[in-house]
């Protein structure tokens, strides 16, 4: 009797923890938008924060946010779908390579992508504008990154890789007999694509579309780096600008945050709907079986050229540029004699670099471990029990996904600025725990639902309690999933700019903020060197963990 009751309430500590990290930022953003004078010296109730919406600068920020998000999605998704279809269904050249390269592209943080594209396409220093165009006889032609199109372009280069991965895996999971049956009934390639293939992956496509919109709305680093000099505000950068004014205007920042938050919440709710439909369509086919490939014939060259141009422009070009700038003295360099490895040594002397790296990696590891463990328990509760409060737990743990980072950090600022946590690295740890949890849950849930229920039940019958079963069976069957979740959270932590921008303090610097600082101080070469080092560290980490656990991660 007692045991029975206890088990029902065992979900409570988990619920409390998840509520504690995901609710305060939202609550404080709402609260803060009505409090005059900011969190340090609250002066009482006000509506003035909402007057910000009458400001034409804010209005154009809202307009820009929507335009950028919608246009970059419209560009990136068709490209990603075409790529995914070509690599999963046709004999296009080097498709195995595409599957290895695309996950690597995910490792490129947005602020580094923005820097690289500025170095390529700035009218005054961009390599393409100053060197490549004159060289190929396009004297006077300038592609200017500093504009709406620049932001759209860089964001679309970051959207294509994850959209590709989602769509390619959806395409691969379709039972090939669906398409075979359509072909046998006489359907031609395009007809089958339109009437069978696409409808089957529609849930994945819609969920991908919404994810692209959400990430577009909450993008902060690219609009900050490119839109800043170009004077193109978006909502997130406007929230940031108002938060760092002297004196800061945290009230109107919170009011604008509420708009972003509402849009993101609506989108994430929609996306979760489609995600659940995706499971309905999930038809895992027999392992090792590959559907017969469509022979492209003379189209093969065009298709291969398309695939590899995309890869070259979206992945190779930025990475190569980064390496080139870090390996040559001065910028823009002139001769091969300028080659040097010096910067990889001298960059360490940059003030606070070591501390920033330490802060970043310690935070990333702590958050990676804690959020992964919490995510495991949350997913276990959601998928394996019929506890009454599990849907509440589910929704609470996914909530931070709908909170754009800049809003999350403003919420944490409002909530914790008067506590002793403020100004320490722990406030960042807390914020990243909130940020990381939904991604941990997402990374874990797929693996968990694949564990057949009987594997756990037989352990229970053998005499193991649920916790023993959880440790000895569930966790032991999920090493790949656990590592994937851990890695994903670490990468999210390292590439995040918005959270540390508002939450850092002296002593708790973060490497992403430091990079921005270097860049703004004109240390272009050093910025690229540090970026290269960061990317190399991330890649090494991924490869090592993959090797150790012999599992495919990020795939």
């Amino acid at each position, binding site marked *: *009797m007692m*045991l*029975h009751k206890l088990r029902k309430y065992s979900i409570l500590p988990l619920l409390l923890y998840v509520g504690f990290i995901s609710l305060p930022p939202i609550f404080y953003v709402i609260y803060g938008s009505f409090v005059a004078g900011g969190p340090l010296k609250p002066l009482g109730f006000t509506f003035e924060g909402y007057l910000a919406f009458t400001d034409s600068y804010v209005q154009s920020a809202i307009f820009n946010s929507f335009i950028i998000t919608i246009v970059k999605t419209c560009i990136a998704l068709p490209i990603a779908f075409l790529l995914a279809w070509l690599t999963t269904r046709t004999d296009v050249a080097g498709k195995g390579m595409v599957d290895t390269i695309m996950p690597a592209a995910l490792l490129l943080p947005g602020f580094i992508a923005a820097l690289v594209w500025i170095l390529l396409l700035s009218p005054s220093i961009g390599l393409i504008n100053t060197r490549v165009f004159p060289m190929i006889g396009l004297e006077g032609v300038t592609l200017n990154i500093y504009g709406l199109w620049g932001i759209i372009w860089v964001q679309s280069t970051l959207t294509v890789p994850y959209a590709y991965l989602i769509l390619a895996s959806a395409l691969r999971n379709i039972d090939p007999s669906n398409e075979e049956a359509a072909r046998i009934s006489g359907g031609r390639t395009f007809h089958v694509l339109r009437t069978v293939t696409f409808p089957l992956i529609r849930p994945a496509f819609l969920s991908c579309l919404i994810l692209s919109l959400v990430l577009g709305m909450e993008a902060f680093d690219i609009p900050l780096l490119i839109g800043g000099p170009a004077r193109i505000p978006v909502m997130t950068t406007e929230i940031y600008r108002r938060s760092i004014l002297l004196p800061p205007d945290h009230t109107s920042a919170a009011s604008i945050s509420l708009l972003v938050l509402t849009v993101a919440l609506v989108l994430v709710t929609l996306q979760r709907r489609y995600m659940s439909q995706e499971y309905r369509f999930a038809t895992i086919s027999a392992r090792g079986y590959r559907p017969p490939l469509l022979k492209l014939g003379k189209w093969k060259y065009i298709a291969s050229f398309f695939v590899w141009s995309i890869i070259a422009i979206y992945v190779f070009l930025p990475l190569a540029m980064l390496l080139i700038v870090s390996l040559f003295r001065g910028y823009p360099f002139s001769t091969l004699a300028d080659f040097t490895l010096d910067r990889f040594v001298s960059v360490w002397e940059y003030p606070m670099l070591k501390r920033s790296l330490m802060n970043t990696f310690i935070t990333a590891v702590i958050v990676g471990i804690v959020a992964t463990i919490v995510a495991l328990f949350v997913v276990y509760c959601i998928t394996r029990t019929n506890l009454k409060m599990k849907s509440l737990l589910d929704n609470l743990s996914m909530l931070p996904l709908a909170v754009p980072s800049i809003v999350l950090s403003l919420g944490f600022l409002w909530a914790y600025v008067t506590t002793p946590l403020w100004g320490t690295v722990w406030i960042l740890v807390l914020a990243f725990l909130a940020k990381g949890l939904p991604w941990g849950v997402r990374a874990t849930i797929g693996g968990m639902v694949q564990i*057949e229920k*009987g*594997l756990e*039940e*037989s*352990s*229970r*019958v*053998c*005499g*193991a*309690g*649920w916790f*023993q079963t959880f440790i*000895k*069976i569930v966790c*032991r*069957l999920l090493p790949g999933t656990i590592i994937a979740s851990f890695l994903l959270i670490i990468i999210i932590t390292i590439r995040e700019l918005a959270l540390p921008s508002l939450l850092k303090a002296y002593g708790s610097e973060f490497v992403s903020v430091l990079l921005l600082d270097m860049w703004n101080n004109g240390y272009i070469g050093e910025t690229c060197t540090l970026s290269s080092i960061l990317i190399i560290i991330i890649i090494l980490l991924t490869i090592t963990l993959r090797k150790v656990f012999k599992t495919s991660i990020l795939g």
Partner: protein
Amino acid sequence: MVKVIVENLVKKFKEVIAVDHVSFEVDDGELLTLLGPSGCGKTTTLRCIAGLEEPDKGSIYFDGSIVASEKVSLPPEKRDIGMVFQSYAVWPHMTVFDNIAYPLKLRKMSKSEIKERVSVILDIVRLSGLEGRYPSQLSGGQQQRVALARALVYNPKVLLLDEPLSNLDAKLRESMRLELKEIQKKLRVTTIYVTHDQIEAITLSDKIVILDKGKIQQIGRPKEIYEKPANRFVADFIGFSNLIEGKIVSIDEKNGLAFVETPLGKLICYNTLNLSEGTSVVVAIRPENIIFGGEGYKAKIVTSAFIGDALMYWLKVSDITLCAKAHTSLDLPSGSEVYIQLRPEYCKVVKL
């Protein structure tokens, strides 16, 4: 030593009643089968006994002590049962030895005792020498033996088997059936077996419980059920393909006969269920019990099918289609007319 009692068990899933007031007893060392089509509630009943589901009503006793009721439901790990799942549920990340040793380790046995016990049980299930293999390196039948060994190695009070043979191919299924029976008799463990296969149930069981839509249709020894199906459902389920509706018009108590008025005319049947005059009944006849030739009913052959060891004929007898099984030497063309006999001892009267 171990007697299992299930009393008025009720289990609902939302609005659907999966198990509806089910009661039965399993004596010590006995093998009882829960038999029925899919969705009849047999697996749910088993899962309630295992503690994997909590009953809404009713109670379950192991040896007089209660393990589940509306108020209490002992978790599975506290019930001391062994269970084999339909999917075997052999843990893919452990070797055969580790799989079987798992319950022993949980019982804090010494290393040497674990080794001893595992080797004894491996011998019984005939897997000796495969200790170091991983499940992915085993065939379906071998995985199934591992699951059985894991369920038996700690001498559980009760052994539960959830369609353990349904994933094996036909030939292997037959030999495993015999082996399973042998092992069960040898270890004399009280066993509850779930299946939808009537032949499996009849060959293995000491007692069969037939379920349909969550309700018990009949409980009895295999021979009893085979020969005296209680109602139309049971008759149909255990292979009486010919079911002719009718009404008892008179009874010959001395010879245990019932005279049933049917569309075929008056049939003389054995009144095995002692039904009274005037009862609406179904006369059930197995295809192999329809005898060709002699004096009897005139039938027209509609179609036939060769099924290997026999020929199946579909016959039309005054607007009623009957199915008959005949020796392959009897080759009759479609459309031809024959005489068939429906003998009293083969005509079972069952309730509607």
